[in-house]
C-alpha cells in the first residue's frame, strides 16, 4: 500500500511547467526524501500532492483518496515558508492547528502542552509567538503539524534555518514518528539529511522525477570505488588494473571490476605490487545523485543557506 501515488502529474504557471509529468509512489510507513535543488519543483509537487493546488494533468491519490483535502485530518504539513500568528500564544497556536485538523480546541490544547513539555518548551506555552526565538517558533509549528497524530507527515525543507541542535532534534522526531508507522515525506536540497534518514528517495530536477526508489538502489547504480596504495609504482601487475584507473603517485583509484576484487588481488600479489592499503568504498548518495541528475544539477545542491548545517 502506498501513502501517496502520483501518475503523470503536471502543474504549470503561466506556461512554465513547475511539475512536469511526475510519477511517484511513497510506501506507507517509510521515510521518504525528495531531493532536488532550489527551484526544482519540490514545493509545487508537494502542494499538488496535498491538494493545496490542483494539477493541470495527471492523477494523485493520497492515503487512498483522489481528493487529498478529504484526508487532511490524517496529514500533517509543515510548509517551507513558516507562518504563525505573531500575537497568538504557543499553546493556542498548536490548539488552533489541531482544531483545523478536526480536534476539539480543548483536546488540542492539552496535547499541545504535553508536546511542548516533551520538547522542553513547557515554560513557553503561554508566551506569544513574537516573544519566542526563531527556533522555538519553528518547534511550535512542528508540534502543530503532529498534534493530531497524523498518518502522513509532509515536511517541506524542514531543516532550513535550524541550528545543529534543532536539526538533530528534528531528525530524532522524524525517526520517532516513522517508528510508530507514520509515513514521513520531506523535501531537501541537502543530500546528507536524506542519506541519514531516508529509506527511499525521489530525485527531482526541472519538475521531473529522474529517480524514485530505495537509497540503496540509487547507490547501486554506481560501482564501488577502489583506492589502492602500493610500494612500487611499476611492474607487470599494472596490466591487471582496470582501464579507468587514475594514478596519484603510488595511489591508484578505479571502479571495482565486475569480476570482483579477488582476481585483482591475486594479480597484485603475484606481480609483487606490495599492497600498502586497499579500500573499497561504496558510492555515497551524493555520487549517485551526480550520476542520476547530472553534474550541473548536483552543483546546485548542498549549498547550505547561512546558518544551515549539512
Amino acid at each position, binding site marked *: 500500500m502506498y501513502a501517496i501515488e502520483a501518475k503523470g502529474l503536471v502543474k504549470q*504557471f*503561466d506556461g*512554465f511547467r*513547475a511539475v512536469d509529468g511526475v510519477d511517484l509512489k511513497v510506501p506507507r510507513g517509510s521515510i521518504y526524501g525528495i531531493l532536488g535543488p*532550489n*527551484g*526544482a*519543483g519540490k*514545493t*509545487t509537487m508537494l*502542494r499538488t500532492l*496535498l*491538494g*493545496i*493546488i*490542483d494539477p493541470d494533468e495527471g492523477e494523485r491519490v493520497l492515503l487512498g483518496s483522489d481528493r487529498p*483535502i478529504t484526508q*487532511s485530518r490524517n*496529514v500533517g*504539513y509543515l*510548509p*517551507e*515558508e*513558516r*507562518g*504563525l*500568528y*505573531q*500575537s*497568538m500564544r504557543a499553546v493556542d497556536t498548536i490548539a*488552533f*492547528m489541531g*482544531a*483545523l*485538523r478536526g480536534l476539539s480546541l480543548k483536546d488540542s490544547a492539552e496535547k499541545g502542552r504535553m508536546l511542548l513539555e516533551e520538547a522542553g518548551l513547557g515554560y513557553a506555552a503561554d508566551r506569544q509567538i513574537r516573544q519566542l526565538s526563531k527556533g522555538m517558533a519553528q518547534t511550535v509549528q512542528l508540534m*502543530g503539524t503532529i498534534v493530531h497524530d497524523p498518518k502522513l507527515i509532509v515536511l517541506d525543507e524542514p531543516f532550513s534555518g535550524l541550528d545543529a541542535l534543532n536539526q538533530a532534534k528534528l531528525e530524532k522526531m522524524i525517526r520517532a514518528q516513522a517508528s510508530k508507522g507514520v509515513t514521513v515525506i520531506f523535501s531537501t536540497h541537502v543530500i546528507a539529511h536524506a542519506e541519514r534518514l531516508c529509506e527511499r528517495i525521489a530525485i527531482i530536477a526541472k519538475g521531473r522525477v529522474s529517480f524514485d526508489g530505495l537509497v540503496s538502489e540509487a547507490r547501486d547504480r554506481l560501482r564501488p570505488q577502489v583506492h589502492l596504495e602500493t610500494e612500487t609504482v611499476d611492474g607487470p601487475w599494472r596490466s591487471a588494473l582496470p582501464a579507468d584507473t587514475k594514478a596519484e603517485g603510488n595511489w591508484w583509484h578505479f571502479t571495482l571490476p565486475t569480476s570482483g576484487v579477488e582476481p585483482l588481488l591475486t594479480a597484485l600479489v603475484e606481480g609483487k605490487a606490495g599492497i600498502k592499503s586497499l579500500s573499497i568504498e561504496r558510492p555515497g548518495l551524493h555520487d549517485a545523485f551526480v550520476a542520476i541528475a547530472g553534474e550541473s544539477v548536483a552543483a546546485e545542491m548542498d549549498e547550505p543557506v547561512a546558518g544551515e548545517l549539512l
Partner: protein
Amino acid sequence: MKEIIRAAFVIARRDFTAIIYSKAFIFFLLGPFFPVLVGIAAGSLGGQIAREAAQPVVGLAMTQADSQKLIAARDTLAVNMGDHYFTEMKIVGDPAKDGARNPQDYLKKKEDNLSVVVTGTLARPVVTGTKRSVDRERADIELLAASALNPGALKLPDATADIVAETANNDKQLRTVTAQGGQILVFFLTMLLAGMVLSNLVEEKANKIIEILAASIPMESVFLGKLLAMLGMALLGIAVWTSVALIGIAILGPNLPSYPTPAVGWPVFVGLCFTYFIMAYLMLGALFLGIGAMAATVREVQTISMPVTMAQLINFFFASYALTKTGQPIEVFATVFPFSSPFAMIGRAALEPTLWHHGVAIVGQIFFAILLLRVGVYLFKKNVMKSGSAGRVKDNGKRKLFGLITVKG
C-alpha cells in the same frame, strides 16, 4: 458540507477573537462616530459663520414719512409671515434733508452692508442694486409699499391648522428619503467591512499562514470563516452603535428629524435593511476575498482596491438613481444585478409594500455570494501558491498581476 461549516467556524472563531482583542477594533467601533462628530463640528462652525456674517439690509432713501410707513408695514406683515421673511430695513437717507443723491452712493458705504436702496415714493418706488439683489427684493418691496399705501386694507385670514402625518400625494417622495437613509447606512457599513476582509486576507498571506490553512481545510472554509468573523465583528459593532444611537435618541429624541414610515412598515424595513446589509457584505466580501487571494503582494491589493471601491460607489449611485424610477426597466435591472440588488431592494422596501420580491432577491443574492466564493477559491487554487521560480518574476522581467494581466517586474 458539514466539514466546510465546521472548519469555517474554526477560522471565524480565531479571526473574531483576534480582531476584538486588537487595538484596531476600538478604532472600528469609534469609526462611525468620527463622521458624526465632524458633521456636528462642521454644522456648528457653518452656523456660527452664517450668524457672524453681515446680513444684507434694504436701505431706505425715501422721504422720512414714506420710509417710516414702509417699516411699519414690514413690522405688521412680519406678524403673519415671520420675522425673517422680510430683509431688515434701515433708513439711510432723506432727500428732503440731504438733497437728491445718487442711490449708488449709499451702496458704496461698506458699514451699512446694503443689498439694495429704495428711492422714489411709495406709489413709484425705485429699487437700486445688483440684478440678483433687485430680483430678490423687488416683489417684497412692492408688497410692503402697497400695504404702506393702504394700511389695514390687507387683512390676512387666520387659517386653522389640521395636521396629518402623511398624505397619499407625497408619500412616495417622503419615503424616498427613508430609502436613501437605509441605502447610505448599509453602503457605508458594507464598504467599511469589505475593506477589512481584504486587509485580513492580505495579512494572512503576509504571515504565510495561508498555506497551512489551505493544506488543512477546504479553501471555501477559509473564505467563509473570514466572512463570518467580519460579520460577527460587524454585528457586535452594530449592537454598540445602536445602543449609543438609542441613548442619543433618548436624550435628543424630540429634536431629531423623523423619517416617513416605509411602505413595509418599520419593523420589516429594519429587518430587511439588516438582511440586505448581510447580503451586500457577503457578496462584496466574497469579491474582495477573491481579489485578495489572487494578489501576490499588498501593492497589488492596493492597486485593485481603489477601482473596486470606485465601481462600488458607481453601483451605489446607480441604485440610488433607480429609486426614483420604480417599476421602470432601469430599476428592475438594479434589483436584479447582484451588487446593486441589496441597495435597490432597500429602496423597494421603503416604497412598495410587496414582500415576495424580497424573498426572491435574497435567494438570488445568496446564490450569487456562493458563486463568488467558489470562483474566488477556484482562482486562488489556479493562480496562487506559486513557489520558487514558478511564481516569481520571470527571466524577461514580466509577471502576471492577479494571474491575469502581464506586468513588468
